[in-house]
């Protein structure tokens, strides 16, 4: 069903992040079983898997929130290290810092990274435009709707131009119309900033809408079951036959219900 071969896809791409034999056990419960894959520079990669397959554990390992049992994660060829590499995380629940305004939330990571003040201000202006929140720059998170708050978090994360941006189903239960709007926005920002994004979701349609490549995880203990390339022009149409074909195919791969 591939319209493009894995080889053609890889041609000319450089590896940004390499995950090597990632394995995670909780006592004798094996959750992640020997997972290896590459994420290419500037790629939009989606990961889907059946409910309960260990996606959260997977992300927590990649972000180095929790230790791996075995394996390694290399960024630009060196072991991932939160003090050296920029690994950013957008959680499912909006996590803007409540006591900072929208613009100070965007400044937050840049200040920690000791970016020079002129660059910070330029980036803040650019991000405010990209997420369309210029009017709300002086607002606090509690004055915003949940979807606006999530956009603040997304702006904050893209602002530091991370080596790897991990997104854990950030648009989970928003209504579809709003989700497509935000997904279009995400694509726009990603294209403009050029960050490497790993997006985890339960929602297969969302994965097909966003991804250049989809990795399908198996049920626990998780391994990579399959890799699917999504070679469709953007903006993608959810009712286009080629779109539906990929969606049905991925659904069949993980269907348990």
């Amino acid at each position, binding site marked *: 069903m591939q319209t493009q071969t894995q080889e053609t896809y890889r041609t000319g791409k450089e590896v940004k992040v390499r995950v090597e034999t990632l394995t995670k056990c909780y006592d004798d419960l094996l959750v992640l079983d020997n997972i290896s894959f590459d994420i290419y520079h500037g790629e939009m990669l989606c990961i889907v898997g*059946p*409910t309960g397959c260990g996606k959260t554990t997977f992300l927590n390992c990649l972000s180095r929130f929790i230790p791996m049992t075995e394996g390694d994660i290399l960024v630009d060829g060196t072991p991932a290290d939160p003090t050296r590499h920029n690994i950013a995380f957008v959680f499912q629940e909006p996590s803007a810092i409540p006591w900072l305004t929208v613009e100070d939330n965007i400044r937050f990571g840049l200040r920690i990274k000791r970016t020079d003040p002129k660059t910070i201000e330029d980036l803040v202006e650019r991000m405010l435009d990209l997420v369309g929140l210029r009017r709300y720059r002086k607002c606090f998170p509690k004055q915003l*709707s*949940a*979807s*606006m708050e999530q956009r603040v978090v997304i702006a904050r994360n893209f602002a530091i131009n991370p080596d790897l941006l991990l997104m854990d*189903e950030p648009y*989970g*239960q*928003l*209504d*579809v*119309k*709003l989700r497509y*709007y935000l997904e279009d926005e995400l694509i726009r920002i990603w294209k403009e900033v050029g960050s490497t994004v790993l997006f985890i*979701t*339960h*929602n*297969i349609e*969302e994965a097909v809408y966003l991804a250049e490549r989809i990795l399908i995880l198996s049920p626990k203990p998780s391994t990579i079951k399959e890799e699917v390339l999504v070679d469709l022009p953007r903006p993608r149409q*959810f*009712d286009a036959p080629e779109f*539906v074909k990929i*969606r*049905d195919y991925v659904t069949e791969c*993980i269907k*348990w*219900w």
Partner: protein
Amino acid sequence: MAQRAGVKIQCRGISKSFTAQKDVLHVLEDVSLAVYENEFLVILGPGQGGKTTLLNIIGGLLMPDAGDVLLDGKPIEGPGPDRGIVFQQYALFPWKTVEENVAFALTMAGVQKGERMAAAHHYIDLVGLKGFEKAYPAQLSGGMKQRVGIARAYTANPEILLMDEPFGALDAQTRYAMEKDILSIWQKELRTVVFVTNNIEEAIYLGDRVVVMSAMPGKVKSSYVIDTPRPRNYTDPKFLEIRKMISNDTDLVL
């Protein structure tokens, strides 16, 4: 077909606003709609569209500022055992087991133990939780908790089931599983269902009819009769066509 059946619920010109400090929030404005006997009606709308408020008014938990709701032609004056509610956040009693939660309404109604446990177990089986009768809510996954919520609403044997985004907190796949199961339960034990959601796909999969509401203040924008046979296929061209049509008709709320 539902349209030929009698009207079960009639909402007439319902308006409701809330006051927060000095701001008056107009949540519902002149909402009129009819729900037919044994119909599966879906109320679809974006976030903050007053859907829950409307459901709470039908449930008798809130009174409208204007307009009224008739149930079998009689005005609703408060909550009653004729209407069962399934809540978005499950609202189970954490200190009660699955069977105690499910039998709760019958316990309150003074039904004797053997009889109420028989009814509870019937619905626990129907929602697929056999074997979990003695478990506590904290031991269950989100999908299982909502199955308890559904069994509890059915056990009181209401004429009407009001479901407030019952699958809103579940992941996309568990949601598909629950949508399939709720339909099979409804087909086995026919009731009038009013089901609220913000998910267009879910609305089309489930409903005999989908009523689309606008963003605040909530008004009825349009109504679609979904007459494709069940079980419906999410990626069927006809399904996607209806979805696109309804999507174009819903408001974008940022």
